[in-house]
C-alpha cells in the first residue's frame, strides 16, 4: 500500500527523510534510504536543507523510485521563481513522483551561500494552489497544458509557532489551497501537541507529528534557544544530561513520545539528522 492509500485507509503512517549530499557521492545517502526500506511508508527528500547548496531533491526522488522506495518531493520557494517551480513539478510528474511537500523554505542567508538572491516569488500557500492549477490542466496564467500532472500535495505546520493561532490560520489556508496532509516541526511536549491537535481536528486533514531524536542535553538546549517553535521540556533535558548511554536514553525518550502521540495524530515523521541508523531501533522500541 502506498503512502496516500495508507493515510486514506486510516493506518498509522510513518515517514522519514534523507538529505542529499554536497557532491556526487550518493552511496551513503542510498544506504541510509535502504535502512528505511519496509519500515516507513514514504521518505522525504529535502530541498537544499538549511539553505546549503547540494544535490537536488528531484533527482534523488527519482533514484528512490527506481529502487522501489516511495519519495516525498520537498519543494521550497527559496531558489526558484514561478516558471522554474511549475517546470520542476511537471518534471516530477513525468518521473512518476506523486507526493509533494510544499514549503516556503529557509532564508538564503542562513546557509552556506549567504550572497544568493532569495527568490520567494511564490510562498507555500500559492505553491499549493499552483499544484492544483496544474492538475486542472493549465499553468498559472491559464494556458492549456498538453497533459496534466497528478500529485498528492502536503504541507508543514509548526504547532509551537508564535502565535500558534496565526499558524493555524495559515494551516487552514494551506488546506484551502490544496494541502491534503501535514508534517510538523519537531514535537517533544505531548500535552501541548494534544491541545494543538484538538484545535485543528475540525480540518479533518491527516497530521504526521515531527520526531527528532535528542542526541544530547546540549542539543535540546540549543534547539530551545534557537529553533523557532521547538520546545523540549526540562525533565527530558535532565534525563539526557544524566544518561549513561545517551543513544539508549534518546531512543527510550523518542519511543515513549511516539507511543503517547499515537492516539492523537495520523502518523509520525522522523527526521534523523545524522542518526539514520537509529531509526529502525526507534521504530522497534515504539513497537511500530
Amino acid at each position, binding site marked *: 500500500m502506498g503512502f496516500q492509500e495508507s493515510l486514506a485507509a486510516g493506518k498509522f503512517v510513518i515517514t522519514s527523510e534523507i538529505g542529499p549530499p554536497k557532491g556526487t557521492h550518493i552511496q551513503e545517502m542510498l544506504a541510509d534510504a535502504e535502512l528505511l526500506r519496509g519500515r516507513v511508508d514514504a521518505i522525504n527528500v529535502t530541498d537544499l536543507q538549511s539553505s546549503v547548496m547540494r544535490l537536488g531533491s528531484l533527482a534523488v526522488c527519482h533514484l528512490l523510485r527506481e529502487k522501489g522506495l516511495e519519495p516525498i518531493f520537498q519543494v521550497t520557494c527559496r531558489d526558484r521563481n514561478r516558471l522554474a517551480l511549475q517546470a520542476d513539478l511537471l518534471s516530477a510528474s513525468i518521473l512518476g513522483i506523486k507526493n509533494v511537500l510544499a514549503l*516556503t523554505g529557509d532564508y538564503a542567508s542562513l546557509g552556506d551561500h549567504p550572497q544568493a538572491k*532569495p527568490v520567494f516569488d*511564490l510562498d*507555500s500557500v500559492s505553491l499549493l494552489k499552483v499544484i492544483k492549477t496544474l492538475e486542472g490542466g493549465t499553468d*498559472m496564467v491559464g494556458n492549456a497544458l498538453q497533459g496534466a500532472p497528478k500529485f498528492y500535495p502536503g504541507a508543514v505546520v509548526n504547532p509551537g509557532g508564535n502565535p500558534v493561532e*496565526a499558524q493555524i490560520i*495559515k494551516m487552514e*489556508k494551506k488546506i484551502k489551497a490544496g494541502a491534503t496532509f501535514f508534517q510538523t516541526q519537531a514535537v517533544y511536549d505531548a500535552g501541548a501537541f494534544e491541545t494543538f491537535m484538538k484545535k485543528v481536528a475540525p480540518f479533518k486533514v491527516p497530521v504526521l507529528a515531527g520526531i527528532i531524536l535528542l542526541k544530547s542535553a546540549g542539543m535540546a538546549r540549543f534547539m530551545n534557544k534557537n529553533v*523557532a517553535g521547538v520546545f523540549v521540556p526540562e525533565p527530558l533535558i535532565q534525563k539526557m544530561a544524566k544518561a549513561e548511554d545517551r543513544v539508549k536514553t534518546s531512543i527510550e525518550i523518542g519511543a515513549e513520545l511516539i507511543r503517547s502521540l499515537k492516539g492523537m495524530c495520523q502518523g509520525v515523521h522522523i527526521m534523523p539528522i545524522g542518526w539514520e541508523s537509529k531509526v529502525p531501533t526507534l521504530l522497534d522500541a515504539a513497537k511500530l
Partner: protein
Amino acid sequence: MLLSQQKSLEEILRSLEGETKIFILGCGGCAESSGTGGKAQVLEMKGKLEGAGKKITGHTVIDFLCQKALVQSRLRGKVKEVKEADSLLVLTCGVGVQAVAAVSDKITHPACNTVPLGGMRGEWKGTERCQECGECVLDSTGGICPLTACSKYLLNGACGGTTKEGKCEVDPEMECGWKLIYERLEKLGRLDKLRQVYEPKDHSKMIPPKGLRLSDRWALEQGK
C-alpha cells in the same frame, strides 16, 4: 519623491465593503504632486464615495503624511470625525498609509498604488518602507507592508521562522512582520483578512512604466 497612482474606484469600493462611514486623508507632499492625494483629489474622492452611498465623516490633507508624529498631532484636531468613521482611506504612497495605520486604531485602506521609480528613494525617518510594488496590498495586512516588513516578502502569513521572542530568524533584531500584522489585525477585529488566500505578486508591475522612463523628468533625474 514617491510617485503614486490611484487605484480604480471599483477596487477602492471593494476594499471598503461592509463599511459605510469613511474618513479620508490626503498628503500635501508627493501625493499632491502625483495628482493623487492633494486637496482636489480628496474632495473628488469624497464626491465619488458619497455617490456610492458612503458617508464621509471628515477629511484632511496633511503635508508629509509619511511623518507619524505630524500625522498624530494633526489628527488630534479631527478626533471626533475619525472616531465616528468605520475606516480610513488614505490617498498616498505606501509609506503614508503605513504611517496612518501606525498611529490610529482604525483599519486603514490604501487608495493608491505606489509606482516603481527604479530605485530612487526619498528620505524618511520612520520605520515604514514602501517597495513601490505597483499594486498596494496594505488593505489586506492592517497597514503594515509584508513586502518590506517580512524578510521573505510573504503574502500569506508567517513562515515557521518566527522566534520565541517574536523576531525574524533571519535577523534577531528585526520584528517578525507577520507577527506585527497578526497583532494589528487582531486588535482591529479583522483576522478575516488573514484567512484569505492572496495571489502571488505581479512582478511586471515592479518595472518602472515605459511612459515614465520616457519622460523628460525621468531623463533629467538620470542625468541625461
